[in-house]
């Protein structure tokens, strides 16, 4: 057990060094990348990927996965946005509905996996399709713009980015960093110091042993997926703040940024270990690549290839880690 923990720690720090190196490299090659505005722009899209990634860390640690978070996030953003933009409800109602919607889909996924015993990959793939269709239906196939930052009800943008001044003199402050810092501290605590977190890890390490030791595995299994759904709901608010118009039928593929980030950050693809702070660092690798590669003038196709290669690297580290653990007779 001690051995494993140490190794997770190691991967985390290696990845942190990679983040710093990547940032340094992109900054040297492109002076535009080095601008504060680029950093703020990268943070805009990091918030929702990071929120999804923190959530999906829990099912991943149980040895499962949640593929419904990408389309789910868009579905919740469409639903909430429709209420705000077309039915004239206040923004907080839309946000609340979006978050609760995510929570419900999370519970649904948990029940499919835990009670009906469906493989997580299949169960959440189905939810991915369902949320994709449901999102378009909820928004009546309209592309949904949430209120803009200057429009009435646009205050939620300021959770993530505070703009002072207007026009060319405006400056933006990424206050979302503070909000996310609080969320991350809470979730580090939840994962390491609460029953939900510790049983999530226990389920991933050895589900049967956990059940035999008297833990209600089903409930905690559902809880892991519920957290994932809840965070997809929270991510939908960050998504609405970052993207001008939410398009129905989109979102597929966004889950891969989040899952990829978590894996790069040291969450085991086979379950059993991982950390919220590791996920945080891993997400930054993905986001740096996504933002930095265009800035150094790399063609679109290469961006995807390089991101894929980085993921393979992370998975290889994970596989080696397991082999080492197996050899150690752990």
């Amino acid at each position, binding site marked *: 057990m001690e051995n494993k923990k140490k190794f997770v720690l190691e991967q985390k720090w290696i990845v942190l060094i990679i983040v710093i190196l990547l940032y340094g490299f992109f900054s040297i090659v492109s002076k*535009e*990348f080095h601008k504060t*505005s*680029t950093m703020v*722009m990268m943070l*805009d*899209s990091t918030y929702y990927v990071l929120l999804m990634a923190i959530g999906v860390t829990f099912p991943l640690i149980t040895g499962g996965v949640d593929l419904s978070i990408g389309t789910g996030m868009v579905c919740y953003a469409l639903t909430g946005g429709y209420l705000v*933009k*077309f*039915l*004239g409800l206040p923004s*907080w109602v839309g946000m609340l509905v979006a978050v609760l919607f995510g929570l419900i889909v999370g519970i649904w996924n948990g029940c499919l996996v835990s009670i009906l015993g469906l493989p997580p990959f299949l169960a959440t793939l189905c939810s991915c399709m369902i949320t994709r269709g449901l999102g*378009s239906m909820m928004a*009546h*196939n*309209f*592309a949904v*713009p949430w*209120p*803009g*930052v*200057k*429009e*009435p*009800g*646009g*205050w*939620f943008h*300021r*959770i993530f*980015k*505070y703009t002072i001044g*207007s*026009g*060319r003199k*405006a*400056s*933006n402050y990424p206050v979302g960093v503070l909000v996310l810092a*609080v969320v991350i501290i*809470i979730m580090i*605590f939840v994962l390491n110091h*609460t029953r939900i977190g510790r049983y999530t890890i226990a389920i991933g390490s050895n589900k049967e042993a956990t059940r035999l030791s008297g833990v209600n595995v089903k409930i905690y299994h559902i809880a892991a997926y519920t957290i994932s759904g809840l965070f997809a709901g929270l991510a939908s608010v960050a998504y609405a703040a*970052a*993207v*001008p*118009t939410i*398009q*129905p*039928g*989109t979102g597929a*593929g966004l889950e891969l940024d989040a899952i990829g980030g978590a894996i790069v950050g040291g969450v085991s693809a086979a379950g059993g270990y991982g950390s919220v702070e590791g996920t945080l660092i891993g997400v930054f690798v993905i986001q740096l690549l*996504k*933002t930095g590669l*265009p*800035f150094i*003038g790399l*063609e*679109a*196709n290469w*961006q995807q290839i390089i991101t894929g290669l980085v993921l393979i690297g992370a998975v290889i580290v994970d596989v080696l880690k397991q082999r080492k653990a197996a050899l150690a007779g752990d």
Partner: protein
Amino acid sequence: MKKKVVSVLLSAAMVASLLAGCGSSGGSSAASSSAPAASEAAPAASEAAPASEAAPASEAASTEAAAAGAHAGDDDKLTGTEFEGLKANEAYNFAVVVKSFQSTYWQAAIKGMDMAAGELGVTYDAQGPNSESDIADQVNMLNSAITGGPAGIGLAACDTTSVLDSLQDAKDANVPVVCFDTGVADAPDGSVVATVATDNTQAGEVAAEHMYEAVKDVIASAEGQVRIGEVNQDATALNIQQRGLGFINKMIELVKADGKTVAVTGNEFYVNAAEGADGDESSADVIIEVAVPAQTTVELCTTEASTILSKEDCIAIFGSNQTSAEGLLAANSNLNLLGSDAAGGDVIGVGFDAGSVIKGAIADGTMYGAVTQSPLMMGYYMIYALTKAANGDSVTDLPTDGYWYNAENMNDAEIAPNLYD
């Protein structure tokens, strides 16, 4: 343990409420102080859309009346086209299958059809699936329309390959089909008598012409190199390729006409397909930089737009469809460079299509202007083409124009109906 949890949750709740408090008070003050009347109008207009959705029939009827009033005796839409002076030999009844009724884009097309039908004394029955991705539903509608034996069918295909069998059936049943909005390239010979769709090359040229008008003094007086950006959603879809190249080639032509050199950089496809660039990247007076994201999402278009906008020498940028134009605006929300005063140092942003975000940005001057397609004119010409085909005459393909719109003309009767939310 439990106490710890409770205390953490409580403190989290407190922080959350603090932030929420700040947020909402900031929001209300900003709402009361800022926002010119025009940008207020945009959300109001978009709110009205679903309400009118509820009663499409009554809306169509009322706009028909309004359009008839506005265009009584106004034949300039037909001047110079093959439809000038066209009369229907009979009171034909056509079937029209659109991609869906949900977006206001298609509502605008219906308005155009109503205008044409009113002028010609023909009628049509329009149907469409619930969404543009309900391909099978649309094929069913097309098949039942053919069975009904109309004088002709107007079709905007959701999926250009799924309708091929039905088009063969239509041909066998001697029902002429006019495609509008979207052409069907592989249609069986003789089944589609004409296609009415946007001339994307021309639409890209319109964007270049208006952008050049705004920045030509800046280019003329520039001491060093200046950069004009273009964000294209992809390098594979024909309409985006045509638009992107229409813009690039026109811009090259205009810049060269004023005695400056120009180079095209960035995406390989567009660089190779561009015509007439004479400069070298290091020495040209004007650089046209073309960016294409890895996927067609607003997020990635935003990053691509940022890479160009962040460069000090960028003076203007074009987003060639709604997604990439919104990407420009999202990038600008961090960079705050776009505006309408090129001489004063603003970067000129030009968009494509509409949607409430782009309309709002144009109304408040953030975006200089945009090019809209004309679903209204496509619907209008489609009915004319069907009538001519039903008369037994041959019809040719009819490209429709892209129209420039900006803060001044966006509420005009000719433009406003095309600007969907």
